[in-house]
C-alpha cells in the first residue's frame, strides 16, 4: 500500500509501517520530557521528611534556615545545605521552641524567637561571626515578641510586640538596645519587611478590619498606602530582593496560597494552586525563585519554585 500521494486517509495498517512516524514520535517524546523537566524545575521539593515546618529563610544562596517540629513539644531551628541536602539543628542542644528566624542582609546576624517559660517568648539576636548573642527577654507575665526582620543595612532589627491590646512594630539595634516604636496603629500589626534600598516598609495590619497588606516609609512608618483590599486574609508580605515585587499569602481563593504583586499592589498573580496549604514564602537571594512550605498528602515539606 502506498500512501505517499495526498490526500490519503491514514489507516492503522499503514501508520506503524511508515518511516516518518518514529521520528515524529521521538520528537514528541523529547518535547514531553523537556516540558516535564521544565515543570519540575519550576517547582521542586527540597525536603521529604513530611514533618510540620514553617518560616524558611535564606542564610545565603545555598543555605536555608527553617523551623521544624522536632518533637511534639518543640519547634526547632534547622539549617539545610541545598547542594548536599544535609541538614542540622542550628542549636544542637536546645530543647526550647525557637521560631520565626530572620537573617541580616550580610548574613552576619540571625534573629529568632525563643520560648522561655509559660506563654513567655523572648527575641534573640545572634552574631554568627563573633559568636555572641543579644536578646530582648519577655516582659513579666505572659508576653512575647513576634516576626523579627532586619533593616536594609542590617543595623537594626524590626519586631512586633503587643501592649495595651495593640500589636505594634518596634525596632532595636543588633545589640537589642535603642528600642523604638515604628508603627503604632489600632488593631494588630505583623510581618514587617524592609526593602533592600531601605526606603519602604511592608507589613500586615488589621487596622481596617481584617488582615491586609500596607506599605509605608521605612524611616518612620509614614506615607501609609494600602496594597490589598480583600475580605480574605492577606498576610506575610516580603519584598523581593530587587524591591520591585511583593510575595504574600492569602486565603482569597479558599485556602492558603502564595501570590505575588507589584509594590503598588497591582498585578496580583497567584503562584501556587493546590487543595492543600501553601504558606511561608521567602525569596531566594537571586530574586527569581521562592521557597515555601507545602502541605502535601498530610505532610509538610519545603519546595522551591520559579517566580515568572
Amino acid at each position, binding site marked *: 500500500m502506498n500512501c505517499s500521494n495526498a490526500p490519503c486517509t491514514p489507516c492503522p495498517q499503514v501508520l506503524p509501517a511508515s518511516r516518518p512516524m518514529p521520528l515524529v514520535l521521538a520528537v514528541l517524546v523529547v518535547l514531553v520530557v523537556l516540558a516535564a523537566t521544565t515543570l519540575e524545575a519550576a517547582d521542586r521539593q527540597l525536603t521529604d521528611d*513530611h*514533618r*510540620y515546618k*514553617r518560616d524558611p529563610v535564606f542564610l545565603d544562596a545555598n543555605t536555608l534556615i527553617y523551623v521544624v*517540629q522536632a518533637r*511534639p*513539644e*518543640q519547634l526547632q531551628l534547622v539549617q539545610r545545605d541545598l547542594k548536599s541536602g544535609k541538614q542540622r539543628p542550628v542549636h544542637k542542644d536546645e*530543647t*526550647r*521552641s525557637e521560631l520565626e528566624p530572620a537573617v541580616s542582609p550580610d548574613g552576619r546576624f540571625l534573629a529568632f524567637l525563643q*520560648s*522561655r*517559660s*509559660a*506563654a*513567655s*517568648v523572648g527575641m534573640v539576636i545572634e552574631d554568627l561571626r563573633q559568636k555572641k548573642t543579644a536578646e530582648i527577654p519577655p516582659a513579666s507575665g*505572659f*508576653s*512575647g515578641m*513576634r516576626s523579627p526582620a532586619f533593616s536594609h543595612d542590617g543595623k537594626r532589627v524590626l519586631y512586633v510586640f*503587643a*501592649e*495595651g*491590646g*495593640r*500589636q505594634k512594630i518596634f525596632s532595636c539595634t543588633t545589640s537589642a538596645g535603642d528600642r523604638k516604636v515604628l508603627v503604632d496603629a*489600632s*488593631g*494588630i500589626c*505583623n510581618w514587617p519587611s524592609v526593602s533592600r534600598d531601605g526606603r519602604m516598609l511592608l507589613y500586615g495590619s*488589621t487596622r481596617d*478590619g*481584617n*488582615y491586609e497588606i500596607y506599605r509605608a516609609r521605612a524611616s518612620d512608618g509614614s506615607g501609609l498606602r494600602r496594597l490589598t483590599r480583600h*475580605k*480574605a*486574609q492577606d*498576610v506575610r508580605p516580603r519584598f523581593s530582593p530587587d524591591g520591585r515585587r511583593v510575595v504574600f499569602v492569602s*486565603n482569597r481563593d*479558599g*485556602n*492558603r496560597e502564595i501570590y505575588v504583586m507589584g509594590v503598588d499592589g497591582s498585578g496580583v498573580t497567584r503562584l501556587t494552586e493546590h487543595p492543600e*496549604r501553601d*504558606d511561608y514564602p521567602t525569596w531566594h537571594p537571586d530574586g527569581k525563585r521562592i521557597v515555601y512550605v507545602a*502541605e502535601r*498528602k*498530610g*505532610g509538610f515539606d519545603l519546595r522551591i519554585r520559579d517566580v515568572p
Partner: protein
Amino acid sequence: MINVGQFRSRTCGGPSRRAFLKLGASLPLVLGRPDLLSAGLSAGESGSGPRAKSVLVVWLWGAPSHLDTFDPKPDAPSEYRGPFSTIATRTPGVRFTDLLPRIASISDRFALVRSHVSTQPGHPDGGTVALTGFHEKPGPVQPNFGAIVARHRGRDGDLPGFLSVGRGIIQDSARIVEGYGGGTFGKAWDPFQVVVKNDGSVDLPALDLLEGITPGRISDRRSLLSQIDVGRRRLAAAGIDDWERAYQMAYGLLANPSAREAFDVTRESESTRQRYGYTHFGQSALVARRMIEARVPYVQLNWSQTVEAITPNFDFGWDTHIYNFEMLMDRHCPLLDRVLPELMNDLQERGLLEETLVVVMSEFGRTPKINPRAARDHWPQCYFSLWSGAGVPTGGTIGESDRLGEHPLTNPISPLMVGTTISELAGMTTKDRAELNVLPGGTLIDELF
C-alpha cells in the same frame, strides 16, 4: 506500628522486632474483671438499645477562642472581634471564621452549641468540671463521663471500655486533671491510655505490665508465673493493689491479635493516613476512628496532653494567652480543619456515624475582649461545642450568645447537662445513673433528642 514497653513491634508488614513488656507505676487499671463487669448494666437492660453505641469526645484541651472559630462576632467593636473574616457555612444563617472552611462545608452534619457556661476559669479545675460535671473540691472527684459509660456498658471483648487517645493523662504545667479518670469509681475505671506519635506508631503504656514477657512466651507458664511475681511486687510497691484486673486486661490485649491490631494504623491505606495528615492529632484521630470501629464504648481523643500553646516542653494546646491569632491561623485551626472533617467523613462513609455520638468540646472559651497582649485569656462564661451522629438533630445551632460573645442569651448549658446528655444517648436512663450514683441533678440538652 505498636510500641510495647521499650521496644517496637510491627503487627503487619515489614521487619518485626521483639516486643517486651515492663511494669509501669502509672498503670491504668481498666476493666478486665468479670465481677466488676457484672456491676455494669448492658445497654439492652436499660430498655431500648442505645442511640450511641460508641461515644467519641474530641477534647480541645486548652480552650479555643469561640469568637475566632465557631461563634464569630463580625459586628463587634475591633477590640473584641479579632482579625478574621467570616464565611458562610452549610447551615443557613450560621457563619464561622475563615480559618475553618472545611468544617464550614460540613456544618449540616453537626449541631453547634454556642451557649455553654462553666464556673471554673482554671484549666485543671475547668477540665474536671467539663469532663465530670462537678468541681474537684470538695472531693471526692466524680468519674469522667467515659468511666460512667464504660461501667454502664460493661466489657465486650478484649478492648477496654474507656480509651484516652493522645499523649497521656491530660495536665497543665502544674498538675494533672483530676477528672481524667475513674474518680469515685476508683482507678479501675481510669481510661486506657493510647499514646500516638505523628508517624502513627502507638504506645500502649498499660502493656508495660510484665517486663521480659513477649507474646510468644505467654505459653511458657513457668516463665510467665515468674514474671507475674515480679510484676505483682512492683504493683504492690507502686501502691496498686488490684493486680488481677491489670493482669487480665493486659493479658487479653497481648494474647488477642485482633485486639492488638485495632490499635495499628499501619493497617490503614496510605491514602487514608494521608487524609488524616501526618501530625500527632491527625494520626490520633485515625486511631480513635479504629477504636470506634472496634466498638469501644467511649473514646476521648485529646488534642494535646498539655494546655499551653507555646511553652517549653509543652505540646501546643489551645491555651493562647499570647499568639492567639497567630497560633490559630498558622497551626491550630488548619490542623483542626483538616482532621475533624476527615474524621466525620470517615465515620459516615463506614456507616459508623449513625451509631456514634461525636462531641467536640473544651473546658471553656476565651475572653471576647482582646487582652493587652493582643490575645485572649480564659472565659468560662460562654463557649461552644459540636455534636454529631447517633441521630442527634444536625444543621442548626443550640443556644445563642450575646453580641460580644460574653454570655449566653438563651439555653445556658452546663457541663453537667453535657455529661447527662452523653450518658443518655449512650443508653443510660435516670435510673441507671442513680444506681451508679453519678450525675445527680443532671438534665438533658433537649434539643439533641
